[in-house]
């Protein structure tokens, strides 16, 4: 008999990549200027993790996907309007500002505690998913700490593919240096997977999935547990948006052959 898996996807929210960000001083440390006004999206790599989780759950009927998200509740509600149409899940909301300038270890503690509180959680069937890095803090350290707190020591980062067997054994490939992958085999769960891009395209919006999800999303948002991140012992000496502008020399009306010669000379001798 197939094992129904329990898949917990950890995903934060990040500013839309098209937004220009400026730092500002907040009462407890640096924040983003007009942070509450910025449009947010689900963290891109965590989104891939969610799509992979949904696909896995579909392959093994009876499996369940939770989406644990630590973010401002109002923003979470906005983002859920689109995300909830992409994949079937049950939302677990934690209400916190949770910008980039927050302590990864403290975030991990809150997420791990939320996973421990899930009703009927069975670690022998548990897969913890997330992005291998966030697009806010970008440390790539939160999931590992979540795993440690849950006592999960089979961990994989930069995952691009996961092949699960019905008994919980699996094969996984992780990104390593030089455009290569490391392949590993693991004999059983639980395990933590920090996803890179994976191999699945973004699923199209499915209003039926959206309707089903929203029945649980709104109560979950109403129940969202307020979380305070203290950033113990962490301080920022400086936060800046560096000026990256270069004085670009624009060359028009030059023949391709001449441009090519310039480029080849600039590249220099063989590498």
């Amino acid at each position, binding site marked *: 008999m197939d094992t129904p898996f329990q898949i917990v996807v950890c995903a934060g929210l990040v500013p839309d990549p098209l937004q220009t960000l400026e730092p500002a001083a907040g009462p407890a440390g640096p924040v983003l200027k007009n942070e509450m006004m910025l449009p947010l999206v689900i963290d891109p790599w965590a989104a891939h993790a969610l799509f992979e989780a949904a696909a896995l759950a579909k392959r093994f009927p009876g499996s369940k996907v939770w989406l644990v998200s630590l973010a401002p509740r109002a923003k979470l509600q906005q983002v859920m309007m689109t995300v909830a149409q992409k994949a079937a899940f049950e939302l677990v909301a934690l209400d916190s500002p949770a910008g980039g300038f927050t302590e990864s270890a403290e975030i991990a503690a809150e997420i791990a505690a939320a996973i421990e509180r899930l009703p009927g959680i069975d670690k022998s069937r548990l897969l913890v998913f997330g992005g291998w890095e966030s697009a806010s803090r970008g440390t790539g*350290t939160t999931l590992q700490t979540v795993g*440690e707190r849950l006592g999960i020591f089979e961990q994989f980062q930069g995952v691009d593919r996961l092949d699960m067997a019905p008994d919980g054994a699996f094969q996984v490939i992780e990104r390593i240096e030089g455009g290569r992958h490391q392949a590993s085999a693991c004999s059983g769960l639980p395990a933590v997977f920090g996803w890179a891009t994976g191999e699945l395209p973004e699923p199209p919006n499915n209003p039926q999935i959206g309707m089903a999800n929203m029945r649980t999303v709104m109560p979950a948002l109403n129940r969202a547990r307020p979380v305070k991140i203290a950033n113990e*012992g962490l*301080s920022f000496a400086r936060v800046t948006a560096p000026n990256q*502008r270069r004085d670009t020399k624009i060359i028009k009306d030059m023949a391709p052959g001449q441009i090519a010669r310039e*480029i*080849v000379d600039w590249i220099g001798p063989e*590498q």
Partner: protein
Amino acid sequence: METILFLAHTEADGSLCRAALESLGAARTLAAALPDCRLVAGLVGGDVRAAADAIAGCGAVRILGVSGAPFAVSRYFTDAEAATALGRASGASVVVAPATSRWNRALAGAAHRLGGRIDAHATAIGAADGSPAVTRWYYRQRLEAVVCRKLRPWFILLDPGCAQPWTGPSGAAAIESVEVAPSTASKTTVVGVRSPQADLQTIRPDAKLLFVAGAGWTKVQPDGKAHGRDAEELILNFLRRTKASLGSTKSLVDLSGEGQAILGFMTHMNQVGQTGSTPRHAKGLATCCHGEEPHTVGWRFVTERRAVNLNPNCGWAQGKADVLYVADAFAVMREVEALLGARARTP
């Protein structure tokens, strides 16, 4: 007084990679900048003898090692155990390690077990008011911050290419062996490494040149047709001749990912930018790339940048490149190919 642990793993041949030597250089510089600071080295690998001998002259007061077959491979379970044991044995308050895929995976776990904190993707490590200060990017290279911490041990993963590698005399190192005895066995077996076929190996982190291909290569050309095959041939020939690394914009990678016959060798691993990588190369040549700030961070750490694009106002180039050639990339790259071919044939 800080105790700095330089923490590295060996490569398959027992050596230390360049990123490790860069971290050693940064650890030494930090140790020199802090008062009453001592440097300890910790090595993990199947056999750490060669690596320890190679850094015998680095000035570390102790060289600790975790050796054995389980530690020859890159695996969270064993690596976190080894790093924790070395952190504990060294009494380190600061751990400086290279941001390799192996340490990126494992060291957050070690920091947690030791009650410490970790900052990954550091781009500089300095000293401020007698304490370490780490520079790193936030929000995918859009904001830069200098981080200070009171909690110890503080693990710092230094990105490759951000410090001068240590060079110095080798010697016969006195290795203090640190025993690691996990209470259970790992369920994970490393099966191997999958590399692209030699012809399709397009990601070369050590290359001097990054070639960035944009979605413009796939667009309909003046003759009313798209020329994906021509683009593929031109780009691959250029990469073969220059040994450049290939980057791509998100739009082009997405097109390839959707199964469109665009550039068969392109994968998400080539993607540069906010949701891709931010590689460090001496030179970068962007062709047919379009997009604004979020995407151009992909070549923020490229020192010299040139671009070929038909649009003189292109966001990839204006204010981002040193030189923008307003021209048809197909025509230019054909000429480049001819010149490189001629150069190769010249004895």
